[in-house]
C-alpha cells in the first residue's frame, strides 16, 4: 500500500526517522501556532474583562444564588461552534495526513534488490539477543549492513520489554509469547558520514525490573561488503553468543548478497 504522499517524495525509501521528523515538525509548528493563538486570545480577554470596578451595572445580568442554571446563548454560542468547527478541521486534517505516513511506516519500503534480512530479537532481563537467519546469535550489539532493509521480529523470554532506538526512531514491544515487528534501514551515506561504521543506541522502553536502566545495547551498521565478511565468519561458530539459544525458526527471506 503506497500512498500519494510517499510517491511525491520521489526517493526510493525513507527511514522511519525521516518520517517521524517530518510529522513531528508539522505537529509542533501547528501545535505551537494554535496554542499561542488560543492562549494569547484567552489572556488578552481575561485582562480586558478584569473587574476594575469601573463597569456600569446596566446590561450586566449578574447571576444570583439559587437560580436554576441557564446557559448563555446568542452570538457567543455561534462563536463556540465556529471555533469548534475550526479546531475539528485542524485536528482531523492533521491526523489524516499523519495516517497516510503511518501506512508507509507499517509496511516499510518495498524490498530492495538485495532482499531484506530478518532478525529475531529476544529481550531478557537485562539485555537483547539477536538471532540471524543462519542461526548465529549475537548479544550486546546488532550488526547489520547498510542500504538494506532490516526486519526485526521482536519477542521476550521473560517480562514485557520494549525494544527501541531513539536515534533511528524505531520502537516495538517485546512481549513474551508474542511477536511484534518493525523495520529500519540505514543508507551507506550515513555510514560513511559516521566514519565507516555507524552505531545507534538501543534501550529498553518498558519498565522490566531493577536492571531496566542498564538494559542497553547498540545497532552497528557496516558497509555491505564489510558486513558480508563479518557475517560469513559467523556461519559455523556462535562464539560471541556465549550460549546460543534457539529462539525459534527465524523467518528468512534469503538475503541475496549473503548466500554466495
Amino acid at each position, binding site marked *: 500500500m503506497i500512498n500519494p504522499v510517499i510517491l511525491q517524495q520521489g526517493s526510493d525509501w525513507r527511514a*522511519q526517522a525521516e518520517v517521524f521528523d517530518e510529522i513531528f515538525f508539522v505537529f509542533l509548528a501547528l501545535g505551537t501556532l494554535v496554542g499561542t493563538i488560543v492562549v494569547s486570545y*484567552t489572556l488578552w480577554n481575561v485582562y480586558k*474583562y478584569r*473587574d476594575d470596578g469601573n463597569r456600569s451595572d446596566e446590561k450586566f445580568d449578574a*447571576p444570583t444564588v439559587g*437560580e436554576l*442554571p441557564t446557559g448563555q446563548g446568542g452570538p457567543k454560542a455561534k462563536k463556540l461552534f465556529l471555533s469548534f468547527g475550526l479546531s475539528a478541521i485542524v485536528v482531523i486534517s492533521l491526523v489524516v495526513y499523519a495516517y497516510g505516513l503511518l501506512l508507509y511506516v507499517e509496511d516499510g519500503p518495498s524490498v530492495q534488490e538485495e532482499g531484506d534480512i530478518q532478525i529475531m530479537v529476544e529481550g531478557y532481563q537485562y539485555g537483547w539477543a539477536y538471532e540471524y537467519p543462519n542461526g548465529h546469535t549475537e548479544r550486546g550489539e546488532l550488526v547489520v549492513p547498510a542500504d538494506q532493509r532490516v526486519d526485526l521480529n521482536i519477542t521476550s523470554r521473560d517480562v514485557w520489554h520494549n525494544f*527501541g532506538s531513539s536515534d533511528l526512531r524505531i520502537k516495538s514491544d517485546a512481549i513474551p509469547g508474542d511477536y511484534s515487528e518493525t523495520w529500519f534501514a540505514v543508507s551507506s551515506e550515513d555510514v560513511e558520514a559516521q566514519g565507516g561504521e555507524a552505531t545507534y543506541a538501543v534501550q529498553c522502553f518498558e519498565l522490566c525490573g531493577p536492571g531496566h536502566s542498564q538494559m542497553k545495547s547498540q545497532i552497528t551498521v557496516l558497509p555491505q561488503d564489510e558486513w558480508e565478511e563479518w557475517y560469513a565468519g559467523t556461519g559455523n561458530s556462535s562464539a560471541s553468543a556465549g550460549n546460543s539459544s534457539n529462539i525459534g525458526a527465524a523467518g528468512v527471506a534469503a538475503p541475496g548478497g549473503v548466500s554466495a
Partner: protein
Amino acid sequence: MSGLPPTTSVKRWFVTTNHKDVGILYTITALFFLLFGGVMALLIRLQLWDPTSQILSGLAYNEAVTAHGLIMVFWFLSPFAFGFANYFVPLQIGADDLAFPRLNALSYWLYLGSGVLLAISFFQGGTLSAGWTIYAPLNVPMYTPSIGSTGAVLALAMFVTGTTASTVNFLTSIHHSRAEGMGIMDMPMFTWSMLATVWMMLFAFAALLAVGLLLAADRVLGSVYFSATEGGSLLWGHLFWFFGHPEVYIVFFPALGVMLELFQTFSGRRLVGRKWVIISICLIAVQSFLVWMHHMFLTTINLEIKTLMMATTIGISLPFDLVVFALIYTLIKGRIQFTTPFLFAFGALLLFILGGITGVFLGAIVLDYEFRGTYWVVAHFHYVMFGGATALFGGAYYWFPKITGKMYDEFLGKLHFVVFFLGFNAVYFSMFLGWETPRRVFEYNPEFQIYHQFGTIGAFVLGLSFFIMFYNFAKSYVSGEPAGDNPWDYSRTAEWAVSSPPPLENWSNRPSYASGKLEFVKDFVPDGGPAMKTDDDGDVATDGGDSHSAHISKYPYWDEHPSHASIWPFALAVSLGVTLFGFSGFAEAVTVVLGETAMQSDINISNALYPIAIVAGIVGLLYTGVKWGLEDFYAPPSEFAERWPFNGVEKVKLGMWFFLASDVIVFGAFISAAVFIRYNAGWMTWEPLTESLPGLINTFVLITSSFTVILALVAARRKSRQGLLATLGTTILLGFTFMTIKLWEWNHEIFDRGVTIAANAHGDPIQASIYYVTTGLHGIHVLLGLVIAIFLFVRVYQGHYLDDERPIEYFGLYWHFVDIVWVFIFPLFYLF
C-alpha cells in the same frame, strides 16, 4: 442529635456518617497522600539529578516510581475530588445527605485502610516495583517476589472496593435525591461532572477490580494468568487500559467541574453553550471506553484496530475542544475577579490546553510509536491530570470559607498560585524538552541532564508551594476573618444559600426549585406521620409513582430522626484490612502439600501471623456485617425529589441495580479473560476439564433456587411467616447443595485427576487456573448469598420482614444475578 458527638470529640470522626464530615476526612487524608506521593516524586527527581550517580538502587527506584504513580492517581487525585463531592454534591442538589450514609463512611474507611495497607507494604520486604501500570508478567511473584508487592496489589483491590461503594452511593444520590424542580439538565456543573465521573467509575473500576482480583489470585493462590504465554501479558494490557483510559477522565472531570463553576462565579457570566457542554461531557464519558488500545499501539494489535482506535482517540478530543472554548468564551464580557480560586482554575485551563495539544501528537500513531515509553508521555499526562488537579486546589480555596466559616488569606493564596505555577511548568515543561529520555530510567543520555536538573529544582519549588497552602489554611482556620454565608459576588449554587459551615442536616426547611428558583418550603407534617406535600386541590400529591408512595406508607420507622452515627463502617473496614493483610503473606506463610486425598494432605505454616490475621479478619467481617444488618440506622429517602430516569425505583433497589451493573463488568472481565486466553491458546485445542454431569446438576439446583426465592417474596407479601421460612430455607439448602457438589468436583479434579490451580496433568496449566478462579469467584458469590440468606432466615424466624418485604426482594435480585452468571459459566467450562 442521634448520638453524634460534637466535632471537637475524636470519637465523632470514627462514627460519623454525615456527608460533610466524611468529605472533610477525605480531603485531609488525600492531602496527606499528596505529601506521601510527593516525597516519592522528590526521590525520583533526586535520582535524575545526575545520569551516572545514584542515591537509590534500581529496585528502590522502581518502588518509588510505582508508589508515586499509584498514590497520586488512586490515593490522592480521586479522593481529593471526592472530598469536595461528598461535601457539596448533596448541597448542590438539595439533599440532606448521600443516599446511603453508612456506605459512604465505609467507602472512606476502606480508602484509609487501603492506604494503610499500602504503607505497610513498604515494610514487607519492599512494595510493588512494577510501575503504576503493573504490566504483566513483571507483576507476578516470579519477578516481583516481595510480600509487599502482594500487599500493594491487595491494597489496590481494597481501595477499589471502597470506590465501588462510593460510586453506587453517588449514582443513587444524584439520580434519587435531587430537590423538587431540579431536572437533570438543571444540575450545577460540578454535580454534572461528578455524575459523569461516577458513571465512568461504575464500569471502569469494576474492570480494575476484576483485573486486580485476577492478579491477587496469581500472587496469593498461585494461578498463572499473567505469566501465561497464551496472551497473559496482553490480557493485562487490555483489562488495565480498559480501566486506565476512562480513569484519566475520572480524575480530570471533577477538576473540570470545579473549573466550570469557578469560571462562572468569578466572571459573573453564565456558561456559554451549557447544553452542549453537558452533551460533550456525556459523549466523552461514553467514548472513554472505546479508546483504550491507543495505549497499546506498539503491541501486536493489527492495523485495522489501530486505525479504529486512532479515529476514536481523535474523536474524543473534539468534545474537549468544545468544552475548552466554552470555558474561554464564558469569561468574555464578564467582570473577572482574580481571586486565588479563579487563578488556580484559570491556570488549570492553560495547563490543560498544553496537555491537550501534546495529546493530539500522541493520537498520531507514527508519533506515538516514538513517544511511547518516553518523557513526552510523562509530561503530557502530568499536564492533563495534575494540570486538571490544579483546579481542585482552586476548589479548596473556593470552598474553604463554606467548610470552615473563615476566609483564607488572599495574599498567601496568590503567592501559592505563583510559586505553584512556576514550579509546575519548570518540572513538566522540562520533560518535553528532554522527552527522548526513556521513562523510569535513571541512567540516561547526559545530553538531557540540564533539563532534568531544571526539572528537579522545579519539583522542589512545586513541593514547597503546598506548604504555603497548608500554612494559609491552618492560620485562617484558627484566626481568619469570618467569611459569612456567601463571600462571593456571583455564586449561584445552593451551598451558598446556607450558613457556613452548613447545619448537620443542611436545611431547616425543604429546598425546592419548583418555582424556578431555590425556595425553602415548609411541608405539612401530620402528627406522627410522614411529611406530605399538598397540591392545589388539597390532595396529597405523589410524585414518584407507586413504589415511592408505597414506601412512605410502609416504612416502619418513619417517625424517627435520621441517624448520623455508626461505628460499623469503621469496624468493617478494619476487619477487611486485617483479612487482606493476612492474605498478603499467605503464599509465603502457608504451603499445602497435596497427598493422595484431602485427608492425607499437609498444611505447613511457617509464619502464623498471616493465617491468624486471615481468620481474625473473616470473623470480624462476619461479626461487623451482622451488627451492621441489625443496627437501627435510619436514612430516609427524600420524599419529594426529581428522579429522572429512575422515577419509579425505590432507593435501595436503585443502589442494588447499580451494584449489580458493576458486578456484571467484574464477571464480564473474568469471562473475557477466559475467552481471550483460550482464543490465544487455540480455541479447539482445549477440552472441558471436568465432566459435564455435576455441572448440569448444579445448573438445575441453582435455577430451582431462583424459583424458591421468588416464592419467598410471594410468601413475604402474603405475610406468611411459615411460607417465608420454608421457601428461604429451601433456597439455603439448594445453595448448600450447589456448594457441596462444587466441593466434590474440585476434590475430584485435584486428587483423582491431578488438576490444581497451577498445574494441569491434561493440558495447559492456565486452563486449570481459569477454571478454578472463574468458578471460584462465582462460588464466593454463592457463599456470600448464603450468608445473607441465613441472616434473613434468622430474622424471619424472629418475626421480621413481614411488614416490609423489600430486603427479601433485594436479596432475590442478587441471587438471580448469581444464577444468571452461572448460565454463562456452565457452557464455557463444562460443555465446550
